[in-house]
């Protein structure tokens, strides 16, 4: 086991290299760009034996990866934000053909307004496209979850592509000490790519992805749903194997000091690190708060999250995306549906949009609000937790009347 100082993008590249990807097609976009660059460096230097297709868009990037995957190799791509939005149409092509691509998604808000910075709105917009979604808390998790995702996605019971979501800049560009496993151990864990479903092969021809009538379409969608349902058990099983092989425990949902907690906050991604710090801090003050860190958002971890939230009367859910037009953000909606028959109060918090830091103060404020709600001292909560005063009066223009 080697320790390296890696940022999130380097960790993603390290994992893809360890998985010995054979075809790479990535289109640079801030804050993913260094993934595209590092992969091309590795290929150019001969450190990774792969075909590097220098594509002209994300749309092509995923198209190339999808057909390359069908042609029998482990294919890699990565994207962010508007790039992921441009891939939208192909995401469904990949999952519908059951091509198990693992794709790092460096979370960044989708324009407009133009932003370069972190939020989960890009990945959340794609949550129903038939891909697994993992959200990383730190750089080590970027590496570990990417390696795990290969095993899960390529498992015969799953055969579903996976996004490994890492927060733009907060993870993609922050250097952290990371344990990098030896190639030999990863080879034993992941192994060479073996095609397990339909394929494109001139020696054994079949025609993939032709028109399907209404007599079969529902069943094919059901097959995907069935795979999603299976995948949660597969993830659990492979997480156990991962722990034995690499000595690090991964969680589908991590309950951090939730057992005796009066209130629990549900959150995803890098803000979980901050939230854990706040939990420790507030507990020293005698406030019993806890965190439910959701690592796997697709499939939604029904059993695991319910277990962590069991018996809690007041729950906060932090959405790092606006969930426009919904009753709340996507994580809140899912959590609410999960706890439908439990007698509990679930509050939605939206924040951390377009690169705004999810601060210690804001998380503390959320916990204090939740505690007050629990004690009956408060009824309303601050849904947009980091909203500035007078949001409607942001900019002014001088017009000809």
């Amino acid at each position: 086991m080697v320790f390296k100082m890696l940022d999130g993008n380097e960790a993603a590249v390290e994992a893809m290299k360890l998985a010995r990807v054979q075809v790479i097609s990535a289109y640079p976009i801030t804050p993913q760009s260094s993934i595209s660059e590092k992969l091309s460096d590795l290929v150019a230097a001969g450190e990774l034996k792969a075909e590097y297709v220098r594509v002209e868009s994300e749309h092509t990037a995923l198209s190339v990866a999808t057909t390359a995957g069908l042609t029998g190799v482990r294919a890699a791509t990565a994207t962010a934000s508007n790039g992921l939005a441009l891939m939208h149409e192909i995401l469904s092509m990949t999952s519908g053909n059951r091509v198990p691509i693992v794709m790092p998604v460096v979370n960044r808000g989708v324009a407009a307004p133009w932003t370069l910075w972190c939020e989960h709105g890009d990945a959340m917009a794609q949550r129903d496209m038939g891909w697994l979604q993992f959200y990383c808390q730190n750089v080590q998790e970027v590496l570990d979850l990417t390696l795990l995702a290969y095993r899960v996605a390529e498992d015969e019971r799953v055969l579903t592509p996976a996004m490994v979501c890492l927060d733009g800049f907060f993870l993609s560009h922050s250097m952290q000490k990371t344990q990098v496993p030896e190639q030999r151990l990863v080879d034993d864990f992941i192994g060479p790519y073996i095609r397990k479903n339909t394929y494109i092969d001139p020696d054994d021809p079949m025609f993939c992805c032709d028109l399907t009538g209404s007599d079969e379409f529902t069943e094919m969608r059901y097959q995907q749903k069935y795979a999603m349902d299976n995948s949660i058990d597969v993830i659990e099983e492979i997480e156990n194997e991962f722990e034995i092989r690499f000595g690090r425990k991964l969680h589908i949902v991590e309950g951090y000091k939730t057992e005796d907690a009066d209130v629990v906050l549900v959150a995803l991604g890098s803000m979980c690190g901050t939230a854990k710090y706040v939990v420790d801090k507030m507990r020293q003050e005698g406030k019993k708060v806890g965190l439910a860190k959701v690592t796997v958002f697709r499939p939604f971890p029904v059993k695991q999250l319910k277990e962590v939230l069991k018996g809690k009367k007041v729950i906060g859910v932090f959405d790092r995306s606006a969930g426009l037009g919904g009753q709340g953000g996507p994580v809140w909606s899912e959590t609410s549906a999960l706890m439908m028959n439990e007698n509990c109060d679930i509050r939605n918090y939206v924040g951390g949009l377009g690169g705004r830091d999810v601060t210690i103060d804001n998380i503390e404020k959320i916990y204090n609000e939740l505690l007050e709600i629990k004690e009956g001292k408060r009824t309303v909560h601050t849904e947009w937790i980091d909203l500035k005063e007078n949001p409607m009066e942001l900019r002014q223009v001088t017009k000809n009347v």
Partner: protein
Amino acid sequence: MFDIQHKSKGLVSHGVSACAGCGLELIMRNVMSVLGEDTVILIPPGCSALFSGYGNESGLKIAGFQGNLENTAACAAGVRAALNAQGNYHTTVLAFAGDGGTVDIGLQALSGVLERRDRIMYICYDNEAYMNTGIQGSSSTPFFASTTTTPSGKPTSRKNLMEIAIAHDIPYAATASIHNLNDFKKKLKKAMETDGPSLIHIQTPCPTGWRYDPGKSVELARLAVQTGSWILFEYEDGRVTINSKLKDLKPITDYIEIQGRFKHLTEEQKAELQDYTEKYYHRYIKKLENMNIETEEHATA
């Protein structure tokens, strides 16, 4: 592995639900007879998707994938890269798309392939409108032709795909016509053997969309060339060969009067089209010939 339920003479099923007299069907059979089994085909949704099949039945006996409308070239690049990664350099990777999937929505992906020099063979069967969705105008629809989105005739002339390919300076690009199948097959063979991207742009008469008697598909293809509406030439490593240099052009009315899509034209418009076609033909032939003169001057300099 295909379960062969019906016998066929080639790699294409005899009973494919392309319209009677469809130019595309004739093209597909000729393409497959030249390319053979060691081919992977990429087809976008559209008329050519009739050959990818329906449900568990396919109309082709080779490996293939039906991608999206705008990423045929990109899907081909993915297959090529994966074959290369597995040490397979012999299989032909064929992208087979219509004018819409090529010059309109698929142009970006095609440009990417041509610029990267991916070893892809690309065939654009050009039926001069979006036929599968119901005859809507494309940027390859010719001047004055009526479609369901250009009901009073297209007010602009067509986009020149070959110029786009030549702008990328690819090793082989050619136009073809179904009335001269020997020429087409010769070009297919050259394209197949090209080490790099190759493109064949073939005019594809469509009885349904152009509104003519289906028996006249081949005749129309011939008339298109004879009237100067469709020019046959090859671009090979920077050199141009014109295959249809004509002394006299037939009057454009010979070509347009048997098609419903030009029925609305007034006598003045017919004259305008005649004038436009002639001028364009002569100007373009000159341009192609100049290309060779420049190449030769450069070689001797």
